């Protein structure tokens, strides 16, 4: 049976493009968007590890089983009827979110084994640990920025004294606070001496890294055995600031060009992916002014359409081709 199931989001362009190729290759494609929770009755049969989705509209049944090839692109299986969400008290909602999330994770993990071929994981997207990834990247042979997580001012001061230019960012994701009244957020920022001076001797644990001076960044999209690399020259590079500061960044977007990974780095990436047990994802590296490759982070469900388009890699074609092969294997 040549059936491919894709778990995705409604507006994901990459999914559209892969499906176009899959149809020309003669595959039968079932796309499940996680926003369409109200459209399905969903049941999970624990014994054999099959998931059944019955469309309430067409009564069509999608069965994810040991016969299907699954690409878990984004989102997750639409398990919770939308109509119930947010109708509960915040405390009950918190409980349900966690409780059902636990089942969704469980299904994700089981399907990895029961489906004929399964690639991508919401579970990995949710539970990715920056410091663990850095640690494993080091083990795979990469250089990593000097990194500490500390709650101690003297330790931080010593770190700052040693490396001079240091940065900080959220431990899990971008720092972001939103309420109805305001919204504030920050990605990566420089930590100044003034900031340190205002800190008490003991504070909330925070991540600090030394600043790597880069020649350029490298973004690698990995899909099974395929690696697609792109170099990104963002300003300022080579110590060169933008020629005309008045110019909008849109007019002079970063240069993004195809890149060939040196063999050792290619091998380190594959090793790292094994360590974190991921078949797909995007990795960000920095090539420092010392010509060394520094591992920054991995995104399990990152976008790849711009890598594909800017470098003319036709990643969508490769993915469809691979999924088709898996169908007939």
């Amino acid at each position, binding site marked *: 049976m040549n059936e491919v199931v894709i778990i995705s989001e409604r507006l994901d362009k990459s999914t559209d*493009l892969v499906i*176009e*190729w899959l*149809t*020309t290759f003669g595959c039968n494609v079932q796309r499940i968007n996680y926003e369409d929770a109200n459209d399905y009755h969903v049941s999970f049969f624990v014994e054999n590890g099959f998931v059944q989705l019955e469309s309430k509209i067409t009564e069509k049944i999608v069965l994810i089983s040991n016969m299907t090839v699954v690409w878990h692109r984004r989102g997750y299986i639409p398990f919770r009827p939308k109509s119930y969400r947010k109708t509960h008290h915040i405390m009950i909602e918190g409980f349900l979110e966690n409780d059902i999330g636990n089942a969704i994770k469980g299904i994700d993990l089981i399907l990895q084994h029961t489906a004929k071929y399964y690639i991508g994981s919401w579970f990995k997207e949710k539970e990715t640990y920056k410091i663990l990834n850095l640690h494993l990247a080091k083990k795979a042979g990469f250089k990593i920025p000097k990194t500490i997580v500390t709650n101690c001012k003297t330790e931080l001061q010593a770190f700052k004294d040693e490396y001079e230019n240091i940065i900080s960012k959220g431990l899990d994701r971008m720092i972001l606070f939103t309420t109805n009244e305001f919204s504030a957020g920050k990605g990566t920022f420089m930590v100044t001496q003034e900031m340190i001076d205002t800190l008490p001797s003991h504070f909330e644990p925070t991540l600090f890294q030394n600043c790597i001076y880069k*020649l350029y960044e490298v973004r690698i999209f990995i899909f099974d055995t395929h690696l697609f690399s792109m*170099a990104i*020259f963002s300003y300022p*590079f*080579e*110590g*060169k600031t933008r*020629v005309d500061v008045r110019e909008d960044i849109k*007019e*002079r*977007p970063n*240069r*993004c*060009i*195809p*890149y*060939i*990974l*040196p063999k050792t780095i290619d091998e380190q990436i594959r090793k790292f992916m094994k360590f974190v047990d991921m078949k797909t994802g995007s990795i960000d590296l920095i090539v420092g002014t010392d*010509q060394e490759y520094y591992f920054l982070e991995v995104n399990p469900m990152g976008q790849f359409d711009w890598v594909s*388009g*800017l*470098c*003319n*890699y*036709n990643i969508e*074609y490769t993915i469809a081709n691979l999924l088709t092969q898996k169908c007939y294997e």
Partner: protein
Amino acid sequence: MSIKLNIPFKLFADCIPVKGANRGVLCDLQRSNIEFIPNSLCDLLHKYDGYEISSILRDHTKNDHETIIEYFDFLYANDFIFFTKTPNLFPPIKMEYKTAFEITNAIIDFNKSSYDFKKVFSELEKVSCKHIQLRFFSKIQSNELASIINLLNRKSSIIQNIKIFIPYNLQNTKNNLEKLLKKNGRISNIIIYNAPKTEVYNIKYQGKLLYTIKNIIDERSCGIINANNFVINSNNFIESKKYNSCLNGKISIDALGYIKNCPSISEHYGNIQNNTLKDALSHKDFKKYWNITKDEIDICKDCEFRYICTDCRAYRENPKDEFSKPLKCGYNPYTNEWSEWSTNPLKHETIKYYNLILD
């Protein structure tokens, strides 16, 4: 920062030099921009990309050094090149053009036509056509247009983008046309030609209403080559290297319902009333122009714009020669001058031959 003489330089892979008869252009595909450069610089870039500038200087006499340094100062200041000790890690962009479906775009002409729109659209779906142009040559009221567009409203339709050309008509108020845009999110532009004034209205999240004083009479108004219509991006550049930049992936239905590659070409492959687009496509001659590239077309092959220009095979300077230059191009790549094609005395015979009506 100034250029480095002893570290290899690389052109960014999205900046591609193209030589012309008399001058070259550097096509900056990510920033949609072109820079005119001398052919001699194209040659240098071709030969030395990935080597140190000092090696260029070594191979040239002292007299040339100042010019060479000036060239590279310019390239570096404008982010066309960078310096790297590992030039072989930066490959060129692969010139490989792939689309999932054979047909990428369609032109549908209407001139008091009697064919069935419903059939047309369902046929377009069957060949997975994503972009369509609807060109109305006769007057059409906005409510008629609305009922045609309604046929295209199916949620699961593969059609992504619709461009509509209509003649100016007092009864179609701006308000009514705006409503049309809102009716179908797939419409990107409504172009109202023969209007009293040229005006553009951007309707947020909906698309554009473009009023233009230019007139369109019928399919014979198509095919004008103009620097404003150059498309500078990698998709177009790569397609132009391999295929015809107008006719590749195109299917059309002319005002009489005939299925053609382009409405202006006389060869047809059946009529939409009785034939399918799929059958037309499988005819051995349907794609006969698809592989004619600018590199094979007379004069265009010497033109620095050849991979960003569109093409026209329907109206050629020499109607008997399939590889002749587009008739409606006024550019001369040997002198780098643009002139008005329609008043060129050398073109008069051909204009008559095609029975073109000039404004």
